[in-house]
């Protein structure tokens, strides 16, 4: 059988790769891709814990479904913001978007 720690290690690796994508990329769309990777890592964790720790309760799957909804709305609003910024400032590089920088 597959030990639970394998799933946790894989999800930690995917989360950290996503974190690098969020912190290290210039393009705002690439940053959103990093966020999607992180949300997916969380989902792997939730489902693995559901399967191994409490398979009788459906809490893990219910939470994973809520995360799907959050990811979908986050992608929609984030990409709308990027399109809007691109329209007004003709850039999607995160360091050029300094409108609210003090």
């Amino acid at each position, binding site marked *: 059988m597959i030990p639970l720690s394998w799933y946790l290690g894989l999800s930690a690796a*995917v*989360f950290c790769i996503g974190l690098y994508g969020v912190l290290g990329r210039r393009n705002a769309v690439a940053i959103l891709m990093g966020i999607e990777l992180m949300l997916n890592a969380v989902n792997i964790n939730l489902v693995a814990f559901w399967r191994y720790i409490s398979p009788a309760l459906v809490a893990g799957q219910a939470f994973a479904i809520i995360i799907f909804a959050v990811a*979908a709305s986050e992608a929609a609003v984030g990409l709308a913001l990027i399109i809007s910024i691109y329209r007004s400032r003709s850039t999607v590089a995160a360091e050029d978007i300094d409108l609210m920088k003090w």
Partner: protein
Amino acid sequence: MTPLQLIFLVIALATITSAVMVVSSPKLVHAALWLIVTLACVAALFVVLEAGFLAMVQVAVYIGAIAILIIFAAMLTRRVMADTGGSANRSWWAAVFASVLLFVSLLALMSQVPTWATATSAPLALGAEPLLEDLGQSLVDVNRYVIPFEVASVLLLAALVGAIVVARPTAKRSAEAEE
């Protein structure tokens, strides 16, 4: 090593490889295509975990909607970032440092719970269909997860309205376009 472990290792390797390609690919559209590979690998992991419904939702929502949305955004904004679009920013070494630090500390935290290393999955008490039925009922049951479910639906509605309002061209600009 059992066949199931071998399958898991193959999927895990594919997941990590494609995830690394997502964050390192210089072309944004390539990164989006690698993101689809990663999402498909996660769906395969859900199948290994006996969560078939979530695997289906993963394919429908993530690959079918979110990945396509990201590809659209990458193509709409491609012109300005064609040459430097995928490159890392000036402090990419700090990002690598933060990610590695987080990974090492997560593994260290994980090793604090020795039961996780040996935990194996008990066979599911319910079959696949009663489990799915239970999941559906738990989302509308007043005593279980109806509040998160309703909050998620309001969140989706707000995101829908917000995305339309944010991405809509301003009145002045659309009037100019008509002239």
